[in-house]
């Protein structure tokens, strides 16, 4: 179990963005960096970062040594800036932890270090991996101080994501059965947390190989998740992972499934929202498929279609 004191409350951080956020939701990148700066950290990113390799490994193409090598590269890039690596994606978070947990006993280590070493890449594997949700929780008092928008009236269903909760349960902040820290943060920000039956269910992962091959299975799982959240009264989902974000968000694209969809925000977007970041110019919520229909930002999203398709900005 991770202790909250292990999470840095200031200083430099390397923010590992991962492929999902860079592909579909640029607001996550923008908002994470600006929010962390406002909260007193010195965040760095680098486009030198490579894919964490999880998707290739999970699909059966890349074996574990590729994962180690990519982690080695990413750690080598990150440590030029900070020993504290913060991910915005559960799967990237899981990848780093899986690698760091196993490198001591892994037989491929020699081979990997030889390959990295041949290019003068010598990562010091002694780094700390955090998820940005944990860092935001650590900085909750500062968020409250700088809060401009209340979450009053917002009924939030929190979804932590499988690769945060389950792939390395010993590293979860709080109780691995029920971490509770995001719920606490949301409540402090004025929102109401709704407990729903399918809290521990996977989102359905629209993007993994199982879902690509069996789309109906994925849809049924996501539908069950959304139904449970709606029945509990939720009007917003908060996730910690861009893949979960895409899975929930994408439901609105399908005419038949639209009625099940709920607005969904990544934790970085939620924090940016309460800190008063511009919904279009900073949070880039126009990149979402499901309109974020919160009364707090109603003015901006009145002409959702105009913004999405014609890029027009309301003055």
């Amino acid at each position, binding site marked *: 179990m991770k202790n909250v004191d292990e999470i840095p409350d200031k200083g430099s951080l390397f923010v590992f963005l991962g492929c999902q956020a*860079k592909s579909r939701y640029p*607001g996550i990148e923008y908002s994470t960096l600006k929010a962390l700066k406002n909260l007193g950290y010195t965040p760095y990113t680098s486009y030198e970062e*490579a894919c964490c390799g999880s998707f290739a490994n999970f699909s*059966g*193409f890349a074996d574990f040594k590729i994962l180690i*090598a990519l982690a080695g590269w990413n750690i080598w890039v990150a440590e030029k800036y900070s020993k504290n690596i913060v991910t915005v994606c559960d799967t990237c978070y899981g990848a780093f932890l899986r690698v760091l947990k196993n490198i001591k006993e892994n037989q491929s280590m020699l081979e990997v270090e030889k390959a990295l070493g041949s290019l003068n890449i010598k990562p010091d594997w002694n780094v700390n991996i955090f998820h940005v949700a944990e860092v935001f929780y650590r900085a909750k008092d500062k968020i409250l101080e700088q809060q401009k928008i209340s979450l009053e009236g917002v009924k939030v269903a929190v979804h932590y994501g499988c690769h945060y909760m*389950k792939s390395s349960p010993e590293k979860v902040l709080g109780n691995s059965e029920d971490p509770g820290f995001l719920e606490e943060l949301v409540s402090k920000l004025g929102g109401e947390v709704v407990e729903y039956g399918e809290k521990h269910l996977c989102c359905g992962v629209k993007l993994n190989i*199982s879902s690509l091959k069996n789309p109906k299975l994925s849809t049924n799982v996501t539908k069950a998740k959304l139904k449970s959240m709606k029945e509990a009264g939720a009007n917003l989902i908060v996730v910690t992972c861009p893949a979960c974000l895409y899975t929930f968000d994408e439901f609105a694209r399908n005419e038949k499934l639209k009625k099940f969809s709920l607005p969904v925000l990544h934790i970085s977007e939620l924090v940016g929202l309460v800190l008063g970041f511009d919904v279009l110019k900073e949070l880039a919520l126009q990149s979402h498929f499901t309109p974020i229909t919160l009364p707090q930002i109603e003015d901006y999203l009145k002409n959702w279609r105009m913004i999405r398709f014609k*890029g027009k900005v309301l003055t």
Partner: protein
Amino acid sequence: MASKGKLLQNKESAELFNLVKVCLQCGLCASVCPPTRFLLKDFNARLLSLKMLRKENLSSSKGSLELAWKCFLCFDCSKLCPHNIPLPEVVIKLRMSLLAEGFADKIYMLMEESMKNLLNTGLILPFGRINIRRFIGLPPSAEIPKESLGKIKDILRQLGFEELLSRLSSTYKGGVNEKR
């Protein structure tokens, strides 16, 4: 057409068996596993473990071959397993064997582009939303700088990833090795 090799040679069978050998078939994994819950007849986490325990010849039935691809890799099973059996690792190893031995045509076709992306650009998904990136003031391109990309590709090459993709391409597309 895929040229099918021999699925799960002795060494691989033994490896998978070793990972699950303490399995008591208690079924806790199946009780939480999403595909097991939502597919009922067509997938069962406990059954997957049983097949590894029995060192079953998976190529004997089409249903068995499909098993490996239904897993969400959500880690529900391994978190709950009283013996910490890493069933997700079993699934990954199984997938690697199925792919390598020519038993996964559709999978290869679905994933080919993403894997080539990883090899050629260092990213599994191309960065996107360029107009929005520009609008919010982020650099429009999130490309990995050329020099670093060269190093990443070299590392992947040294560790056999490029060779694997080549081999898979000829297994599933029959002899034509696309080199970009």
